[in-house]
């Protein structure tokens, strides 16, 4: 679900994609939410422009659509980073230290929940139970679950994601102090 979105699609391509999505789904009853889900899954996020297109195609007021989008936490109207890190704050993870993980990540990435690092590499989200409670605390980086994570091991955990990106990375990779990296 959090697969890397095609961020550089130009607007003609986007239009066509939205057309296809709406066409294929609009005949079912209660089609709006499935359409929005499909649109977000292929575009990465729901821009105002995309929502306006959907509004036109469905012949449904924009305000109604944006009301639905803002109601559900699954929808995002902001572009996400290449990797979305979701820290589980379900109860099992919470009592086994999920909150400490989140605090540490905020510090390492220098962002708050819902934000994206400046280099567009990481976005930070929280989740509520990924079904791996036996292995708590867990976090997800895109579709991959990491289990029994310790705050002190976070920097090492993120390292491969950063180096994988090195070819394209600029100088402003997320701030990780030397101490953390050990």
């Amino acid at each position, binding site marked *: *679900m959090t697969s890397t979105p095609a961020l550089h699609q130009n607007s003609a391509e986007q239009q066509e994609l939205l057309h296809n999505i709406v066409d294929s789904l609009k005949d*079912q*009853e*209660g*089609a*709006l*939410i*499935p359409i*929005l*889900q499909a649109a977000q899954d292929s575009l990465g996020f729901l821009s105002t422009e995309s929502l306006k297109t959907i509004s036109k195609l469905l012949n449904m007021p924009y305000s109604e659509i944006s*009301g*639905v989008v803002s*109601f*559900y*936490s*699954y*929808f995002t109207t902001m572009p996400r980073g290449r990797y979305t890190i979701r820290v589980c*704050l*379900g*109860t*099992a*993870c*919470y*009592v*086994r230290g999920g909150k*400490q993980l989140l*605090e*540490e990540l905020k510090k390492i990435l220098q962002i708050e929940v819902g934000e994206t690092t400046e280099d567009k590499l990481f976005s930070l989200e929280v*989740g*509520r*139970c*990924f*079904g*791996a*409670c*036996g*292995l*708590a605390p*867990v976090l997800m980086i895109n*579709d*991959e*679950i*990491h*289990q029994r994570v310790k*705050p*002190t091991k976070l920097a090492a955990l993120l390292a491969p994601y950063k180096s994988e990106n090195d070819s394209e990375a600029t100088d402003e990779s997320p701030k990780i102090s030397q*101490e*953390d990296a050990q």
Partner: protein
Amino acid sequence: MAYRSYILVCGGTGCESSHADKIYQNLKNEIEANKLSEQVQVIKTGCFGFCEQGPIVKILPENTFYVQVKPEDAKELVDEHIIKGRPVERLIYSASDDKNRKSVIAEEKDISFYQKQYRIVLRNCGMIDPEVIEEYIARDGYAALEKVLFDMKPEQVIDELKKAGIRGRGGAGFPTWMKWNFTKGATNSETKYVVCNADEGDPGAYMDRSTLEGDPHSVLEAMTIAGYTVGAQKGFIYIRAEYPLAISRLKIAIQQAKDMGLLGDNILGTDFSFDIEIRLGAGAFVCGEETALLASIEGKRGMPIPRPPFPATHGLWKKPTVINNVETYANIPMIILKGGDWFASIGTETSKGTKVFALTGKIKNSGLIEVPMGITLREIIYDIGGGIPNGRKFKAAQSGGPSGGVITEEFLDTPIDYENLAKLGSIMGSGGLIVMDEDDCMLDIAKFYLDFTVDESCGKCAPCRIGGKQLYGLLDKISQGNGELDDINKMEDISLAMQRASLCGLGQTAPNPVASTLRYFKDEYLEHITDKKCSAGVCKDLLQFNILKDKCVGCTVCARKCPVNAISGERKQPHEIDQNACIKCGECYEACKFQAITRG
């Protein structure tokens, strides 16, 4: 048996996260490389339940139970176990503290984690490949549907459910036969619907997810039986978008059932037709509430509406709608096949059958368990769960998630059923069971749940929207050391208002975690308020770490552990903590071998 051996690899979410897929692939490759594909079948199943020990691999017919298997172990398993017939001892479950330990435990039935369990809902989880309908059918799958379609009238199905006494597993525990009967009798519309609630909102619970991942056909079969019974042609499964594996297995299962004429037009050649569609939830806890869920399927914002009228007569698009939870459905084929009397023979006077719990938190054997109603919490925690790890003391268990409460030591021997849990100030809920030890602060737990409900309130009605925030605010204030005695009265007043005046269950039950912790742990609240102390060591604003000069030997362990370099000192000299830099993570406290660091 077509094969000489079966290798079952757990494909549940927990084990997948520790590379079960790679294990499966490697095993398959090894079997092929040894030209054994004709004799040995490798199968990926649903969750075995014992997630803590995952990834799990089980080999039949010997029933050998391997735990914590790694992808690189595949070769040894095939070479030794399959080819030479010698079990790989080092991978066999042998937790030194398992009560039944002799040397190593090779079989599931000898593991205490499994002994007190009774599997109806999870009958096929860990037994079959959920992506192969033939395996479900081989274990009596779709036999209940056949029986219903050819030998039973709708009234008889309802009678059987009534005899079984099954009650909803989604939280409220409403008798299932009554719901079905209302919808069956509804005359306001010819069109009717069957809906499966797979929203599983309780944070920290994954029973429904595992059932769908491990045995999707059981739910499809039950929904189809419901369709026949109430006269519906269409079903919807509303499932969280965060459950990709369950969704993909459901899609496969639906297609397979259609291909075999078990779903779709003219099922099994009869004139009964029934179709099932999947709808993805979009991340709103309140959408687990039935009226909000139905609004969401209709494409609207998922806000609850007042009942009555109930969905049973005025549900989806105002048509009569049966809505049940995943676990409720998963029971039904067995009730039809084995009879209501059989089902009613399990459990207590008011609560029949079994309940699936996600047993998590401070517990040795964390995992998914299914137990008969009436079992005690002590049996669950100590016999199945193996007790509390790290020599800590049990403090409380929480059931019912954000709508529930805590159960304390003195009630460990109460038989668990709907009524008893309610009497204790908790609820059965959907099956989250979180064990907490002396290091958990009850006020912090209440705050955790309130934070959740405030976040998830749909905002439609004021008591929930405003009351929740106020409650949270008071808890927060107390946790920071600014609480006053009167705050407790205030919390009680707000709770009462929310319980009475909120529109839906979310707001009505949101104060429960506060009420319940106040009831059993008032001292702990008072300690925060009057002594400004949190003896569990959780509320950071009330904590300070110090190094005792006379005990510190200057080993530098703490300084090296500290993530923010707040500890200074020369080797072999007493160390010191810079209180301004300290983030109170407790790493040093845990690390010091000389008890030189105090927390208070």
